[in-house]
């Protein structure tokens, strides 16, 4: 009987379709660029693409949760920078061991998330405004704390290995996949488990689908919302670690603008800004579409002005495809 029920579900309406659509888009881009340039489909370049996806991808993972609750977090870019600066403070200024610096950086991001959550749930400030404020606060704090100068990790050479070293490469010669990629995939797997297998994930969807009903069902809405923003902050912290270790420095002036790239990736991946639906695999595909597109267009030496235009067009097309699918 259950089988009969499943068959009755219109195939087009299923969640898998959007993923399929996005994935097809990704494959299309891959094939297209491979045909257009012999230098695109090469091991080194593919690794480069994945590495270039890591920072944006981790940010997108975090903000996926927030967007599924029908919220938004504009502070992710600068919270990332803030976390990087904090880990610089811990490691370079305070000479603390690297693991403590990493944890400290991630906790700094999570702390920003808690503040976001509290301003949204307790002070009832809309997420757009709360996180816009947090964006400015962390941007300013990063500059203040760092004294407007980059903080280098020259005294801790191991720090750089977090991103660009390759554990896999040392085990399998020639298979030089940077650690950042492994961390990104691990973060994605954790995010996916959190979203689909745990109470946190269930309430993430419930909040986005009907917040009032969730509240009336006896769920502590404020607590879970704050938790979700905190999780997002922690992911920003992780992105900050990946970025600063790759640059071997915490650059306090960077960060703004990264939030829009991450949100775009989430949306391309089929997560609706009105909440209630979304998948981690979608977000990852969305992030890859963005980086494959930039990489491919650069390889073809398309002028940067046009790269931006094309990315914008792709974003709109992706969301439009989703709307068309829903209408059916």
């Amino acid at each position, binding site marked *: 009987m259950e089988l009969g029920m499943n068959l009755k579900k219109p195939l087009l309406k299923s969640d898998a379709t959007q993923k399929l659509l996005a994935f097809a888009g990704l494959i299309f881009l891959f094939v297209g660029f491979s045909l257009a340039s012999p230098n695109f489909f*090469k091991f080194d*370049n593919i690794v*480069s693409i994945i590495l*270039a996806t890591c*920072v944006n991808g981790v940010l997108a993972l975090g903000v996926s949760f927030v967007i599924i609750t029908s919220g938004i977090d504009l502070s992710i870019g600068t919270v990332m920078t803030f976390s990087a600066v904090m880990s610089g403070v811990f490691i370079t200024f305070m000479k603390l061991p690297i693991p403590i610096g990493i944890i400290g950086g991630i906790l700094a991001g999570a702390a920003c998330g808690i503040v976001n959550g509290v301003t949204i749930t307790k002070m009832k400030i809309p997420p757009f405004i709360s996180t816009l404020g947090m964006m400015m606060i962390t941007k300013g704090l990063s500059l203040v704390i760092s004294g407007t100068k*980059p903080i280098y990790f020259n005294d801790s050479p191991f720090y750089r290995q977090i991103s660009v070293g390759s554990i896999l490469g040392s085990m399998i010669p020639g298979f030089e996949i940077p650690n950042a990629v492994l961390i990104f995939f691990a973060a994605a797997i954790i995010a996916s488990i959190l979203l689909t297998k745990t109470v946190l994930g269930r309430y993430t969807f419930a909040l986005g689908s009907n917040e009032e009903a969730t509240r009336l069902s006896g769920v502590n809405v404020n607590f879970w919302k704050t938790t979700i923003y905190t999780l997002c902050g922690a992911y920003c912290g992780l992105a900050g670690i990946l970025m600063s270790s*790759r640059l071997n420095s915490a650059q306090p*002036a960077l960060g703004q603008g990264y939030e829009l790239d991450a949100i775009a990736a989430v949306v391309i991946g089929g997560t609706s800004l009105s909440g209630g639906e979304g998948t981690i695999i979608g977000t990852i595909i969305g992030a890859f579409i963005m980086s494959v597109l930039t990489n491919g267009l650069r390889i073809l030496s398309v002028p940067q002005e046009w790269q931006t235009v094309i990315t914008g067009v792709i974003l709109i097309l992706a969301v439009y495809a989703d709307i068309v699918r829903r209408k059916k």
Partner: protein
Amino acid sequence: MRFNKVLTVLLSMLLVVSLLGGCSSSKPAEAPKTEAPKAEAAKTEAPKAEEKKAAGKMYIPVISKGFQHQFWQAVKMGAEKAAKQYDVEITFEGPESEAQVDKQIEMLEAALAKKPAAICLAALDSKAAIPLLEKAKAANIPVVGFDSGVDSEIPVATASTDNAKAAGYAADKMAELIGGKGEVALVVHDQTSATGVGRRDGFANRIKEKYPDIKIVDIQYGGGDHLKSTDVAKTIMQAHPNLKGIFGSNEGSAIGVLNAVNELKKDGKIVVIGYDAGKQQKDAVKSGKINGSITQDPVGIGFKAVEAAVKAAKGEKIEKNIDTGFKWYDKTNMDGEEFKPLLYD
């Protein structure tokens, strides 16, 4: 009482400035197409400025294109040195990113409202600043350009590095290091500013004119963002496996190229030439990972800009173009005494 009043005014001004800053993105920068009328500004301004000076310490706002970046911090250092030497009061400010033309215009507006003795300005967008500069001219406030300067006749002087000349020299060095032939590429920090355009064209034109065997295969832009520049440079190297050399047009771009070379393990296979300084770039030059870089003299730029402003305000005659010079540094010469003040961290 009086003190309170002053405080109130100051506070409200602060509020207004911060508010303007907050909503700056919605405020389009004006960009009139009118060319500035030609004028010999320096002479006419002299008497008025004298009067101002009598009222107290001369006040000169310095508006740069940024303030976080170490380059601007070095410029600030030079400006402060000049302020001390000439006993004038300066303020140093700049927008957070080089895209914030509107914010800089607001800073210029606020500075003008304070009726300064002279203004030093590194315009992000010269055309957008012209209406305000004309206002300054009408009020007999001399304007001194610095760094990329101001593309107009209004400034009485400009203290700057000749970007095209400096980048041309970098091209010569590139040709020498790769043996006069092969493929090279550029990672540039932006495609609109005078420094971006000047360095890009200075480099590219020199190659075209003098080195027919060298081919520029790609010019891409990384916005001066270290991470983006890294990915840009990596892509260029992927797309052009036979690449012999890359030129990074500012600190962020040079570091991006450096990261790309490291990540793709192409040390020694690709010639890297940078621009500006910074700790990471200095270390890389010292270790030979960057073959050499052009440095401007940011301290000198700041110093000379303020110096020229003081002189203009006093009505003294000054040179129209103050070349603050550039230097090539590599691991062989960078420890020399002459580089100490030039290579900021």
